[in-house]
């Protein structure tokens, strides 16, 4: 073994990415991220949507320039798309007008590889990834799984040292994703892939535990590496192994723990942290919330559910379930603690109420726990014409968060407030009003 084996292939140092807003301070997407990737490992970046993990992947790929910090590839600073790094896209990003073979050859063509050599290497990659016979097909003739195989072949054919994958299986159905994962891991274990390491982004906890040697768990807003876990199991891994299950459970617990680095010592059961006007909210439909509350209140959970089990039963990914749990927590209907979701008395009452009763409970919860909704209603009450433009609320939110977050948050407030009949909203005019709202309340 020579020294180069131990030197990391890639190093991200003190990387910081901010969204620059003219008026106020920078809004952070990534803060102080340090990552090193050695030869021979699969590293997973796990986190909620909006935690900046995809941004980090693009910085590593040389597609984005970080605001501060640097990326080193084999000891040299990265200044653009790096030779030796190839990427697999979530959306496949195949060219619909090129055949499978032409798509695969794209990177080689860009390097100016001669035709004969190109054909040979494309052929190898296509066969390796199980696409033999599809060379002359166009992407639209292929199923999703086959398309992502083309994406993989296109990346592998340039013989990159580091393969980057951006949620490569999330656009596929469960069975197809599983087959593709297994195939990839088999090829990796048999050392048939012409690559040294893999860095993948995922929001699927099981996928990360199934594939990766090392998992970096990201916290959101701003994104930073909250935890680093080494997965101790050898390939092939068994999902049903109790140790595997426990590992998944632990990651759930980590991801539901609020602000792990906060000075306050994490209490065993966290009280619903009071939201401020500018607490980012993710749009979760009220139907989903009601359904989740009913499920929690009924058998077999009886008011308390283990998150991984609940996710499996509801066929939801962690990424989808966690925002719902957090919404319940925000409204005071539920509490997240150590990987469990527990119903509060308010939540139980909601689950058993009829439609009007639910709306009243929801309205009360919104006014008590969601300052943004309360502020909108208050403004409407104060105005003589009971109208208010959504733009001013959006602007206020944007002083505290990125436009995307502000948009999500405002949309959540609109949809929740409408359901609770606290106000109505005219999409065309972007205006809140008290029309059609019984103001007796």
């Amino acid at each position, binding site marked *: 073994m020579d020294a180069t084996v131990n030197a990391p292939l890639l190093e991200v140092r003190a990387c910081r*990415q901010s*969204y*620059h807003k003219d008026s106020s301070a920078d809004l952070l997407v990534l803060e102080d991220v340090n990552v090193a990737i050695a030869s021979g490992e699969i590293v997973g970046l796990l986190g909620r949507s909006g935690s900046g993990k995809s941004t980090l992947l*693009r910085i590593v*790929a*040389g*597609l*984005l*320039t970080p*605001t501060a910090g640097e990326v080193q590839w084999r000891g040299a600073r990265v*200044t*653009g*798309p790096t*030779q030796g*790094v*190839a*990427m697999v*896209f*979530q*959306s*496949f*990003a195949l*060219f*619909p*007008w*090129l055949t499978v073979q032409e798509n695969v050859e*794209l*990177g080689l*063509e*860009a*390097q*100016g590889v001669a035709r004969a050599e190109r054909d040979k290497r494309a052929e190898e990659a296509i066969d390796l990834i199980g696409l033999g016979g599809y060379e002359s097909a*166009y*992407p*639209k*003739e292929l199923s999703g799984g086959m*398309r992502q195989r083309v994406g993989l072949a*296109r990346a592998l054919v*340039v013989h990159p040292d580091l393969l980057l994958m951006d949620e490569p299986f999330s656009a596929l159905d469960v069975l197809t994703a599983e087959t593709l994962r297994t195939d990839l891991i088999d090829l990796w274990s048999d050392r048939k892939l012409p690559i040294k390491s893999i860095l993948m982004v995922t929001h699927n906890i099981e996928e990360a535990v199934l594939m990766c040697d090392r998992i970096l768990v990201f916290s959101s807003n701003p994104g930073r590496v909250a935890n680093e876990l080494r997965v101790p199991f050898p390939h092939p891994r068994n999902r049903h192994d109790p140790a595997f299950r426990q590992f998944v459970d632990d990651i759930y617990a980590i991801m539901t723990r609020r602000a792990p680095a906060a000075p306050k010592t994490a209490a065993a059961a966290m009280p619903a942290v009071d939201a401020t006007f500018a607490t980012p909210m993710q749009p979760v439909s009220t139907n989903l919330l009601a359904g989740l509350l009913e499920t929690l209140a009924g058998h077999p959970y009886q008011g308390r559910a283990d998150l991984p089990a609940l996710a499996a039963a509801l066929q939801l990914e962690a990424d989808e379930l966690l925002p719902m749990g957090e919404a319940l927590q925000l409204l005071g209907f539920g509490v997240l603690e150590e990987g469990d979701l527990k119903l509060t008395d308010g939540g139980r009452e909601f689950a058993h109420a009829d439609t009007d009763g639910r709306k009243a409970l929801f309205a009360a919860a919104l006014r008590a726990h969601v300052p943004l909704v309360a502020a909108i209603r208050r403004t409407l009450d104060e105005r003589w014409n009971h109208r208010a433009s959504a733009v001013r609320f959006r602007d206020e939110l944007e002083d505290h968060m990125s436009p995307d977050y502000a948009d999500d948050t405002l949309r959540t407030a609109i949809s929740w407030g409408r359901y609770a009949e606290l106000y109505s909203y005219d999409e*065309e005019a972007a205006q809140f009003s008290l029309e059609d709202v019984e103001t007796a309340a």
Partner: protein
Amino acid sequence: MSSTVHPALALGRRLPNVWDLAALVCVFALIMAFAHAAPGTLKPIDAPEALAVDLSPANLPEYALRTTMRMFAALAASLLFTFTYAPWAAKSRRAGLVLVPILDMLQSVPILGFLSFTTVFFMSLFPGRVLGLELAAIFAIFTSQAWNMAFSFYQSLTTTPADLEEATRSFHLTGWQRFWRLDVPFAMPGLVWNTMLSMSGGWFFVVASEAITLGDKTWTLPGIGSYVAMALDKRDMGAVLWAILAMLVVIVLYDQLLFRPLVAWSAKFRFEMTASATAEDPWLLKLLRRTRALRVAGGAIVDVFSAIGSWRIGRPVGRVANVAAPRSRAGDAVFFALIAVVVGFAVWKVFEYVASNNVGFADLGAAVGLGFITLVRVMVLIALASLVWVPVGVWIGLRPVWARRIQVLAQFLAAFPANLLFPIFVVVIVRFHLTPDIWLTPLMILGTQWYILFNVVAGASAFPGDLQEVAKNFRVGGWLWWRRVMLPGIFPYFVTGAITASGGSWNASIVSEVASWGDDKLSAHGLGAYIAHQTDAGDFPRIVLGVVVMSAYVLLFNRMVWRPLYAFATKRLTLD
């Protein structure tokens, strides 16, 4: 088919901004520059004897060929323009600020209006030679084709999918490679479709540009257009019919041999990942695909293009900063100063031109008044054509078998130069002593009404089946069905068709508000007739005035009526 947005609707902006104003001034100054150069060179030119046109039908094949050659020469020029202007506007932030509004203005200018002085201008470049006339005709066709092709290309260039764009960077494609691997293929369906529309429009102008009368001089270029002009002069109805027949043959040939195959082929580049049910290949494309020799030849052409596309010209496009790259302030300052100088110069020239030709407010008032009459005509015609073609189009569109056939027919009719049909109408008007002010009017929409028809057909055939079933299930019928179900469903398509028809009608007004049959001259009141009369009189300042006023009408009408309608249609009447 008509999923391509009309270029005039593509820009989201409605209210003119400072860049529009700058572009407006520059375009007008350009027109005046042409007009200014023209009169001085008018005198030394004599109509060459070589350009005589003979009415014998035996000459028609040759004339048709010459007319077609002009079309394709102009098409080549338009493609060249498209592939330089559009990438420049799309890739350079500064250039885009100016180039895009200029393009937007140019497509509102009625080309026929300044045919006369571009002709004189080109003849002055090649005094006494046919080449000048040829170039003038080609330039006229070019101006009818180039703008919307460039616009379509520009739009594609600015909307390439982000993930594919990232893929090209991540796999180290150079700018050149990216252009041929991503930009051009992505733009192809829109470009082919717009090229087809341009060609359709072009036939109208090639016919109009072959016989130019200015003052007491007439120049003719051998071709179908001049043949018809001669026939009109000699009151030879037989010759007119022969010409119409020849044109029909030419259009069938060009449609079958060139555009059907091209459109079918370009479907391959459509950016969709679902294999949609595609129509059967046109016979020529089938032939090309099945005949071995032709396939090999076709393959060779594709290989050449593919090889060109893989040249590693330039350096791989690097990464982008998340914050907009720090702009070069000095560069910006120089650029804006330059623009200011050009605009200032243009303003000065416009004033100088107006002042030195004593075109007063009275003339302006007259032109604006006449423009209003033409505006009323255009609006009435669009309304009438809509009343007729919307129900017909919906009926056809809901019957897939018919839709396919009629679609082809309507596109064909749109390509047929309607000005060849004018004589027939004129003879009827003269015979029955009808009022020109009313009866010349339908000529304006003769060629352009088909755009309404085929867009409505496209809209109705794309109308979701489940919504139709809902309407049936709830027994929604009669007027309620039109009001709540069908009209909102086809509205975006209708607007696209109507704006094309209205733009075309403005242009056609210049040749259709005035008509003649031998010595019988018919004239309606309107801005089109004004421009035509001033052209006959060789009064350049007033031609310019007419053209400028007409451009302003078209521009304002697009901005104040069509764009808001289109914005409303896409925002409210589509589900996604």
